């Protein structure tokens, strides 16, 4: 139960049945007024949107069919940019690495976050302090986090001093992707803990009591009561995870610049380089269009899966 929906209403505990009164003439006029006000209310946001999102995005779609280096006039090449990309090993590497990064980072993140949230879902000072610690990385920006971890991953940094593995975290093609994943899990886990805690706190107390009365043990309660009830939250969490993961940029940009080789090249970094370093705006736009399509399909799929399951 959402507090903000229930509490003010319920605190005013008086009975009132005024809702059933007939007031149809008012409703007709109201509809028209509401339509007008509705448009007016959406207008400020839509104006910002039209200028600073829709226009540039339409231009991205348009440019994906052109060769455009920012200075010479655009040259129509049809699907040339897409053909180029499908034959481009760097693009392929970026797609694969992005998929690895999304799954590698967010699968453990979501599992860990779920466990931590269940553990922290307890009203005590200890839980409060721990919760605060888990939230700290969420409140830090990626730029700051990457600067900190750059030092940690240094050959003489914290990790090597701790583990004595002599691993070349950022310069070895097999370790660099893992290094980015470890850092990202550290950064992101708190965010999902918040989401799951919110979900857990919306589960009503009496459901657990009923389950306990029925003789279910704590593990079974979590498996058969908590998880099913958390399904809508899990849906939101995975959508968040995919969008955040697919759009990852700062870690790869600051820590490895996509290297060594193409080991940590991801889609967004490639978009940035293609657009701003290589000045191939048309091709960068084509990558963006492909990514847009992929994200859209995945979001729709996720929604369908979760809807089907909860139905």
């Amino acid at each position, binding site marked *: 139960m*959402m507090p903000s929906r229930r509490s003010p209403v319920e605190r005013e505990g008086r009975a009132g049945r005024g809702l059933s009164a007939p007031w149809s003439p008012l409703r007709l006029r109201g509809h028209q007024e509401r339509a007008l006000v509705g448009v007016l209310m959406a207008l400020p946001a839509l104006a910002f949107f039209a200028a600073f999102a829709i226009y540039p995005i339409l231009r991205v779609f348009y440019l994906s069919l052109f060769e455009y280096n920012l200075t010479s006039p655009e040259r129509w090449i049809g699907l040339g940019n897409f053909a180029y990309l499908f034959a481009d090993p760097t693009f392929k590497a970026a797609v694969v690495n992005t998929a690895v990064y999304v799954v590698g980072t967010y699968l453990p993140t979501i599992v860990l976050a779920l466990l931590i949230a269940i553990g922290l879902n307890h009203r005590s000072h200890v839980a409060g302090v721990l919760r605060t610690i888990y939230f700290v990385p969420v409140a830090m920006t990626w730029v700051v986090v990457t600067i900190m971890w750059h030092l940690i991953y240094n050959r003489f940094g914290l990790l090597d001093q701790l583990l004595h593995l002599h691993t070349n975290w950022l310069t070895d093609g097999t370790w660099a992707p893992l290094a980015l994943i470890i850092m990202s899990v550290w950064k992101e*886990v708190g965010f999902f803990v918040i989401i799951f805690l*919110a979900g857990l706190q919306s589960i009503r107390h009496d459901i657990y009591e009923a389950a306990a009365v029925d003789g279910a043990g704590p593990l079974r309660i979590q498996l058969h009561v908590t998880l099913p009830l958390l399904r809508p939250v899990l849906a939101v969490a995975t959508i968040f995870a995919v969008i955040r993961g697919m759009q990852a940029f700062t870690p790869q940009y600051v820590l490895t610049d996509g290297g060594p080789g193409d080991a940590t090249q991801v889609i967004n970094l490639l978009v940035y380089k293609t657009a701003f370093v290589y000045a191939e705006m048309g091709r960068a736009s084509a990558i963006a269009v492909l*990514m847009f399509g992929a994200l859209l399909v995945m979001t729709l799929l996720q929604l369908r899966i979760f809807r089907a399951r909860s139905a």
Partner: protein
Amino acid sequence: MSLQGVEAERSAAGLSGATASAGWVFRFVLLGLGAAALALPFAYAISTVLKPAAEALSVPIHWLPSRFLWANFLLPFQQTNYGRYFFNSFLVGVSVVILNLITCPLAGYSFCKLRYPGRDLLFLVVLATLMIPLEVIYVPLYDLVFKLGWTNTYWGLIIPAGTSAFGIFLMRQTTMAIPDELLDAARMDGASEWRIYIRIVLPLLRPALAVLAIFIFMNNWDSLLWPLLVAGKDNYWTLPVGLAAMQNNNEVNFSLLMAAALEASVPTLVVYFLLQRYFVAGIALAAGLQG
């Protein structure tokens, strides 16, 4: 209005104080270990700030500095234009948050509760923009901002971020939880649509507005590429640009860099801790968690 509600919901999981047992101790020891692992990088960063330069990255590691150089925390302000970057980040962040707190709930409410032709299509378009990587629209956007004469101005940093697809989405989701009956009753009482919005809807959206404010503020605080492109002069640089410059600057030392990084996190940490309760409640709203 809702804090007591949140508190009342806190003691979930169906376990009262009486059942606190060895299991709980075990649980908190595990969680504590996790938290310690999570906190270690901070301890390392702080100790790096306080160390003399020679002890950073030394082998073997100096866990504790031989001397505690607290003054190192002032280095970024002494050696770079850090104060100005801070001011800029604040100015831009607060302005963008205010704009979003105006535009997003208005649009979200409109998309949710007021019917007019094309409404759902508009909302879908807004949602779809969430899927476009920001980096790629920066080029056409930069073109536009330049033509408007906004490069090297705060306008160029603030105005394009004046609304957000995520914010509108969040507000629409949250508004869904407000019962229509409540609004209809107000209409029956003769309240105008604007009055209903300001007097009823906005107060009910407060936890979600807190979430929105945090998200927008954080995003802005984290934004590196756009300010870098728009702000040519370092008078307009924000913290991430300043940090990137420090990392590039040939005279950088790790104490300075870590001090700058940690200090850049203070405002967002404060914002988080102040609004943490609202944040949890707001996420619950956004996820559409009805009881």
